[in-house]
């Protein structure tokens, strides 16, 4: 990582898939960047945009929302709603000059520990390259 800068990343992980995926990564002793602070949520559809904005307000450099693959939602359609919501929000964040890159949305199942690790690592790398948010 460049010049000792550690981006602060908040991850909202769906309890039914990505959280278990992260857990699996841990128990399988896969390693990934320690920058991410994980918050377990019942569904990616539960992640209200204000939670993300609150993260940015409080100094997060990037926010990851990770839920079940479309079609696999524990509640049938939570992630479909999340997809629409975050597609719009990402574009809006860009417009506001916060940057769409800073909101990452991923689909990751409970068995995809490696996928989770890869996604977190690539997101961390991207955030590190982007540098800190100027005002935080």
């Amino acid at each position, binding site marked *: 990582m460049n010049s000792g800068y550690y981006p602060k990343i908040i991850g909202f992980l769906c309890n039914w898939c990505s959280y278990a995926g992260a857990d699996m990564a841990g128990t399988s002793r896969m390693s990934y960047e320690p920058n991410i602070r994980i918050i377990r949520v019942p569904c990616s559809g539960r992640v209200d945009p204000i939670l993300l904005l609150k993260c940015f307000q409080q100094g997060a450099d990037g926010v990851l929302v990770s839920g079940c693959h479309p079609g696999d939602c524990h509640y049938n359609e939570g992630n479909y709603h999340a997809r629409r919501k*975050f597609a719009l929000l990402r574009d809006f964040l860009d417009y506001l000059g916060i940057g769409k890159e800073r909101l990452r949305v991923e689909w990751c199942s409970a068995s995809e520990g490696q996928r989770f690790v890869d996604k977190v690592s690539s997101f961390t790398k991207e955030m590190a390259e982007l540098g800190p948010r100027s005002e935080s």
Partner: protein
Amino acid sequence: MDSELIQQIRNQARDLLESGTVKGVIGYERASDGLTARPAFAYEPAAVERLIFDETCTHNLVIYLRDKKAEKMAIVVKPCDSRAINLLLNEKQIKRETLFIIGVTCPGVVETSWNYKGQTLQARCQTCQLSKPLVYDFLVEREPVEWPKAVPYLNVQEMENKSIAARRGFWLEQFERCIRCYACRQVCPGCYCPECFVEQLDPLWVGIRIAPKENELWQIMRAFHLAGRCIGCDECERVCPVAIPLSLLNQKLEKKVKELFDFQAGLSPEEQPPLATFKKEEKLGFEE
């Protein structure tokens, strides 16, 4: 001022009040500057003589329906305002049967503020595609007025074309000026939550500080809560006492909603709003 049109509004209002069809009529009257218009409530037949309509009738009167749910009201509605009626019908906030809609075909509304009546049409009128209200019980007839339509979203595109740093700087400067008077919310037909997130104490989302970070959170969420719901009346921007270009936020979301979901709010009382529905097959730019 079109006196024949006004006479039609007054006659209709008087009939409705005299016959007891409605409890009151929400329309426009002359403001204290003797020049522009303000919202007016008429409860007695004699009061309809105060009602007017002209190119300064900018207010979207539909907001007042949220205080008048108990009794049947008549309301004067421009084509753009009728989208707010559809929005509220769609979201089950008002009942069609407690409304009598006096629709007016609109000559366009000019830039106006207290004691100021401009020459140019408001930006929203320049791109308006509606020639008459989408929903009404009585239509005030008049010669249709045509004017050249401008290309929509030009100012949004201009903003999109700026660098990310420039956009950030621009918005921070705008939000810093916000004094959190909430006029933008109060005047918005889509903002009707009994308790707004911004004033919620438990959990405390935003808090009382009138300061850049809190203002930003407020303004972003205000706009986002209207994503796919904003009917483009621009009243929030008109009322802002510190000249924050709020429409530039709302229109950005409107534009994106149109692009992604081919939807515009308030055109139908039935169509599902885009954030209340989904298509399984859409990807929306996210890798699966």
